[in-house]
């Protein structure tokens, strides 16, 4: 019950809100250091080419230029995943996409640095290019990298849980569909930026707009061959991340190297065009799904294939590949499940994690596929989901542990509020309703590099004035991690968020947090913060109990007081309590740690997918389509999200609304596409994203399932609510126009093409007609969890 809390569940303002509304928050590019130089990166103009020669002489002679570096100065490779260390700070032998960095300069100002780039002479020998999944799999003679699971195949996965053939044989109805989901950029409003300062005592400090200071720290140590103990990484407040600032990047390492060479601070701020090349955005994914159903709509087996266009480097790609297959069973009980996926290298900017990481694409495919199956089976789209919905506290066929699950309530809320049952199929011409559901992680169960240390640690120190300082490496990217820290600690200690000072995201000063990715921060940092705060509270209670001659168990901390719960008049003010405790125990400081329980299953590849909890979402979308122009206008969105417990409803709503917005951008307009190796529109003007004018009416419902392991029962809100909206749009377009858009984004051209096809007697569909004819390796065959068949067959 929210009323049990003083802070949790209350619509308090974000603790960093006023700084952001007054211009006081310092982002990376706002930093200015004495004697600072400005750096720029020279980027490849070829999608694939051998570097024959680089001559930097003319640039070095330019007045105002202090240093010029090339690939040979930083030859050690790096990458976010230990298995894909395939990136060079500056390309050594060849470039792999237009935008691949080849040289870097530091100069007295940005203009001089820019001019210096024009004075670097690079001779390229162009190589044949690979620009699509199909080309990557067909052109074995062209190789972008020399490693992987096959020619131009970065990763190939093949897993089978139970015998799918048995399930398909038992099916009354089998359906197959193909889908394509185009890639998109995160488009954070802040361009990436880093400032590096090397001092003559051998200490290097790097300030960067990064979601993962810990992984930047590791990459700098490796590439610079400089001890981690002498490198300090400070993540500055991130002006929008969405996954796009989760890798270590060339500009960070180059700034550090240039600072080491010149002995002066160096700042590199990327341009908007460069952000499109840095990318790490949504993978374009081609998908095929085959599902067997019983007559009543229950799934008997599913076979899912995905082909990811990874771009030129590995990035998070191995994890992305697994994620396109891992979470389908978290919403529906799939008794037998086979997943085959592969990621190819292409000569495009590298793809990586964008909000929902690898799961929005298969979720779109799955929810549209189910919508079609429901119609074929004569079942309504809501019923087919309810019949297959997972149960709370169950295990999926691929060994994912489900704990709290508010899926059913999410469905109820949006279906009821939108009048879906009564209105679908009965709206005027051109109008339609679509429905979909989804689930998402609350933090990846395993860290990116193997280790058995905690994933999150928090340290708290209390000063004798009553001020509380919380130290955490969590970085606020706008999602509200600073506020989560302040709210959770304030709740436990019975003080106000304003009494709390935060020291965050600094590898010298703060204990570990792995980063703001995989929706892990509220769950993991929150738990660590609660543990640390509880230890402080225990110390204070023991001291106050001694002072007041009361048992410590009777004490309560609330409203900046510590008092007897049976006799609230008896107590001390917070400041008095702190002083009594410090006199008794010395420095009031405590630490808390969070480590996810061991959750991986008994098979290789089971490390991707497990999470200590899953959030659930359901959405109904109402569209108004113009069959003459193909324009699709989303007028209303109903969305319910199971956040476990809402630590702050304003922040949760903000995450949900932002997710809906980003989903609509991807569903209708955003795409990162290429022509002859070149990005078609690396600018905000031509890369279309929704403005205020495209904002629909949004109805947000927060569902609280109170997770047993989350901090105060909380789960995630930052990514999950994006997932159901995209397929709900596609399903709504079908309800409105009777055509199937099996390809994202749903542009007016595609809607018109589908309508034209239907007029000619076709099925009225736009989407891929085939998938590459490739034989996946034999699957790893995994017996379902013990008791699984019994569990499934006895479901009501």
């Amino acid at each position, binding site marked *: 019950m929210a009323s049990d809390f003083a802070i949790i569940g209350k619509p308090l303002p974000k603790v960093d809100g006023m700084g952001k509304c007054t211009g006081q928050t310092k*982002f990376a590019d706002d930093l200015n250091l004495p004697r600072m130089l400005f750096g720029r990166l020279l980027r490849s103009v070829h999608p694939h080419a051998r570097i024959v020669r680089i001559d930097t002489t003319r640039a070095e002679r330019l007045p105002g230029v202090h240093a010029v570096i090339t690939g040979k100065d930083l030859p050690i490779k790096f990458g976010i995943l230990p298995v894909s260390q395939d990136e060079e700070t500056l390309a050594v032998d060849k470039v792999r996409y237009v935008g691949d960095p080849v040289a870097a300069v530091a100069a007295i100002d940005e203009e001089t640095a820019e001019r210096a780039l024009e004075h670097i002479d690079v001779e390229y020998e162009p190589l044949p290019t690979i620009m699509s999944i199909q080309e990557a799999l067909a052109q074995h003679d062209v190789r972008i990298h020399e490693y992987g699971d096959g020619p131009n195949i970065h990763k190939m996965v093949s897993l089978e849980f139970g015998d799918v053939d048995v399930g398909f044989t038992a099916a009354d109805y089998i359906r197959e569909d193909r889908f394509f989901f185009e890639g998109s950029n995160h488009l954070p*409003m802040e361009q990436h930026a880093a400032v590096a300062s090397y001092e003559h005592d051998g200490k290097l400090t790097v300030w960067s707009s990064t979601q993962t200071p810990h992984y930047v720290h590791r990459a700098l140590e490796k590439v610079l061959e400089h001890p981690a103990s002498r490198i300090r990484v400070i993540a500055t407040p991130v002006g929008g991340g969405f996954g796009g600032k989760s890798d270590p990047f060339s500009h960070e390492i180059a700034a550090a190297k240039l600072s080491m060479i010149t002995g002066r601070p160096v700042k590199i701020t990327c341009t908007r065009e460069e952000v499109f090349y840095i990318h790490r955005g949504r993978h374009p994914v081609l998908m095929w799904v085959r599902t067997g159903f019983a007559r009543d709509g229950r799934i008997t087996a599913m076979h899912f294939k995905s082909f990811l266009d990874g771009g030129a480097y590995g990035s998070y790609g191995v994890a992305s590949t697994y994620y396109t297959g891992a979470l389908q069973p978290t919403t529906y009980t799939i008794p037998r499940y086979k997943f085959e996926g592969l990621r190819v290298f292409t000569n495009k900017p590298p793809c990586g994690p964008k909000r929902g990481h690898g799961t929005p694409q298969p979720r779109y495919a799955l929810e549209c596929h189910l919508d079609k199956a429901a119609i074929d089976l004569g079942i309504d789209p809501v019923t087919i989901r309810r019949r297959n919905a997972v149960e709370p506290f169950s295990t999926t066929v691929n060994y994912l542990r489900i704990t709290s699950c508010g899926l059913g309530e999410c469905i109820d809320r949006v279906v009821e509020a939108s009048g879906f049952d009564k209105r679908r199929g009965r709206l005027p011409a051109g109008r339609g309703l679509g429905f979909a559901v989804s689930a998402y992680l609350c933090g990846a169960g395993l860290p990116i590099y193997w280790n058995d240390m905690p994933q999150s640690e928090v340290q708290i120190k209390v000063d004798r004035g009553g001020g509380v300082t919380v130290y955490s490496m969590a970085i606020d990217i706008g999602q509200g991690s600073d506020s989560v820290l302040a709210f959770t600690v304030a709740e436990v200690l019975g003080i106000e968020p304003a009494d709390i000072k935060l020291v965050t995201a600094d590898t010298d000063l703060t204990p570990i947090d792995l980063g703001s990715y995989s929706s892990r921060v509220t769950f993991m940092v929150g738990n660590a913060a609660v543990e640390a705060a509880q230890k402080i509270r225990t110390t204070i209670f023991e001291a106050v109990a001694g002072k007041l001659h009361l048992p410590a168990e009777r004490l309560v901390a609330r409203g900046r007081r510590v008092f007897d719960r049976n006799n609230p008049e008896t107590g001390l003010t917070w400041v008095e309590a702190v002083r009594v405790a410090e006199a008794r125990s010395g420095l009031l400081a405590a630490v808390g740690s969070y480590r996810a329980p061991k959750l991986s299953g008994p098979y290789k590849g089971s490390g991707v997918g497990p999470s200590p909890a899953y959030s659930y979402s359901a959405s109904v979308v109402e569209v108004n389509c113009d069959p003459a122009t193909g324009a699709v206008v989303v007028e209303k969105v109903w969305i319910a999200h199971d956040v476990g417990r809402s630590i702050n409803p304003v922040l949760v709503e*903000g995450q949900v609304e*932002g997710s809906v917005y980003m989903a609509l951008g991807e569903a209708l307009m955003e795409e990162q596409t290429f022509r002859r190796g070149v990005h078609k529109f690396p600018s905000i003007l031509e890369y279309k994203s929704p403005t205020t004018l495209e904002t629909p009416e949004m109805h947000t419902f927060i569902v609280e399932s109170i997770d047993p392991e989350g901090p105060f029962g909380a789960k995630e809100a930052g990514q999950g609510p994006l997932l159901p909206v995209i397929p709900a749009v596609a399903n709504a377009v079908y309800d409105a126009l009777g055509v199937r858009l099996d390809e994202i984004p749903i542009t007016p051209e595609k809607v018109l093409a589908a309508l034209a096809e239907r007029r000619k007697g076709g099925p009225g569909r736009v989407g891929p007609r085939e998938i590459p004819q490739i034989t996946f390796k034999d699957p790893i065959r995994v017996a379902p969890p013990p008791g699984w068949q019994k569990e499934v067959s006895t479901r009501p």
Partner: protein
Amino acid sequence: MPKTLVLLTVNGEPHEVAVPVHKTLLEVLREELNLTGTKHGCELGECGTCTVLVDGEPWLSCLTLPVEVQGRVITTVEGMACGGTAHPLQVAFTELGAAQCGYCTPGILLAAKALLDESPTPARETIAQALSGNLCRCTGYVKIFEAVELAARRMSGAK
């Protein structure tokens, strides 16, 4: 690079700066006057992030040359607060979570201020129209609309 002497009035204070004539107002505000509250998202006039007010009108500082705005009144986000008291828009944006990452926020606040100075109780469609040149990737705009409406109510009630 030859420099030109430019006299700018920013947030009520006169500043004399010597800058190359092609430097944008955005660059001069951030780099010469250290008013880093004004942000940049594209430097091509596409995103609205760098919005400042010139004589009360929203201008894209990345497309403005300082010589164009000599003798005019320039307001940046740092000039919105009155001494230690935040502007009602800043208060409402903070209370309602209209700033998430906060990077687009200064530009949106100034565009909203220009709107409310002109039209004290705008309809939501008018707010959407007035802010349509400012991109925000975090909020989905809903909380921004609500915050502008709350500030409008408070400001018109106070008059």
